[in-house]
């Protein structure tokens, strides 16, 4: 006859270190980053090549025939917008596809059944896209540097703008991944919303050059503020006050974080 002891729950707060208290979050983040690196041809190489082609074609080939914008050479002017476009698309598409796949194959149950807190699951799933976006941005800038001389005039603004855009689009990706019922839903937001708004947000031109009412309409495009904030960080120029851009980004990012937190806290759409 064997006696059965009543098990006690180890108190995570009793761990001496921060790492010990959040091993689940670290493991989930590691899993999301491992997915990015295992699929590097698809997750890193493809977006870098396509964005770099824009720099080559628009910057070097056509750039010499287009006059500069705000006193900046055209091949330099487009780099921040292209970097932004690649980053936000990567952060969004990574998280929407990773979360949808995990729901579709139901291996997300292994995470939901674990002792992780809801905010840890949300954050862990979000960080994969953010890491992927940063890798793409760094590689893209390094590749562009030998061809075009892109300065970083406002590093603090650049860091803030990149951080806010990653929070915004990583969370949006997680939200869409939770709601999506098919792959089409996830790609719809990317192809019909994010890509067109990136193009119309001033990636390739200054919105100031647009006639009315297109100039005013551009100001309701969130990507306009994202692109301008990042461009200000690189080049020190922007179509709108950089503080307004950062404020708009912070407000939208806060809404996205609140929304995704609510989904994980309540289990809505994640659990039947």
């Amino acid at each position, binding site marked *: 006859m064997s006696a059965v002891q009543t098990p006690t729950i180890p108190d995570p707060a009793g761990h001496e270190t921060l790492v010990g208290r959040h091993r689940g979050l670290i493991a989930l983040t590691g899993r999301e980053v491992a997915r990015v690196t295992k699929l590097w041809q698809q997750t890193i190489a493809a977006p870098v090549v396509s964005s770099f082609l824009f720099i080559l074609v628009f910057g070097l080939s056509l750039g010499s025939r287009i006059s500069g914008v705000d006193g900046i050479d055209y091949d330099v002017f487009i780099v921040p917008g292209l970097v932004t476009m690649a980053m936000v698309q990567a952060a969004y598409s990574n998280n929407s596809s990773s979360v949808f796949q995990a729901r579709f194959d139901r291996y997300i149950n292994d995470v939901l059944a674990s*002792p992780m807190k809801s905010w840890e699951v949300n954050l862990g799933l979000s960080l994969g896209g953010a890491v992927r976006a940063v890798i793409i941005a760094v590689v893209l800038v390094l590749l562009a540097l030998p061809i075009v001389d892109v300065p970083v005039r406002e590093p603090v603004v650049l860091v803030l703008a990149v951080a806010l855009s990653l929070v915004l689009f990583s969370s949006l990706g997680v939200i869409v991944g939770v709601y999506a019922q098919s792959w089409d839903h996830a790609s719809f937001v990317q192809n019909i919303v994010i890509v067109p708004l990136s193009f119309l947000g001033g990636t390739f031109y200054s919105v100031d050059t647009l006639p009315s009412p297109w100039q005013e309409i551009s100001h309701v495009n969130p990507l306009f503020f994202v692109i301008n904030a990042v461009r200000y960080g690189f080049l020190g120029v922007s179509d709108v006050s950089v503080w307004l851009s950062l404020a708009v980004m912070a407000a939208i990012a806060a809404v996205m974080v609140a929304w995704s937190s609510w989904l994980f806290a309540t289990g809505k759409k994640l659990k039947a």
Partner: protein
Amino acid sequence: MDHATTSTPALELRGLTKRYDDGFLALEGFDLTVPAGEFFGLLGPNGAGKTTLISAVCNLIRTTDGEIRIFGHDHRVPGARRLIGLAEQDINLDRFLDVEETLLYHGGYYGMEPAHAKRRAKEMMEIFDLSAKAKTRAPKLSGGMRRRLLIARALMHEPPLLILDEPTAGVDFELRLDLWQYIRRLHGEGTTVLLTTHYLEEAEELCNEIALIRGGQLLARDSADGLRAHYGVDTLADVYVKAMAAAA
């Protein structure tokens, strides 16, 4: 095997109700107590509420009403979930991870220290004969290997309550016997096991106590001998047929 149990049950459900968003009532006011150290079987037809019950215990569905306690702890406390190991009915392995990574990441999700997780993963791969496939991704494994990995994953963090939802569905006879042997040994070492199965001989072979459920209601619970005596029949199959017919 006889087990002494503590007064705190491994699993306690009080008034558990689950109504899905489409209005389907899967469980209504369901009460169940599984004593610690028990090998407990849940039998019932498809749609009886077995998987809903397990999903509710493991935080995979939102319950409508009721209380769930794991070794006396409210199941909503994240730490209580560390006490449960779950092998679901469908194979739900992470397609991007190999065998070893599947076990290591699971250990991480459950708060295991990396060195401990590494040792435990090695042990699990040896026990379940998966060492040769340590670097093979889940989709490339055979059906039997995937089933073994699923159970190894459930056991990775050494849970005192193991929940197996139809663990031998679709596996060959040899693997079924291997799994029976291993699960029996675990139970012998003190792990409480909650098993759902459609194989009546499996329930009879393994379980100390069996509950019959249908339409989200508990019809009867007893040992296999007790159930046969209660229904006045000779086999568990006859018990099943009689109980389900009476509840229909």
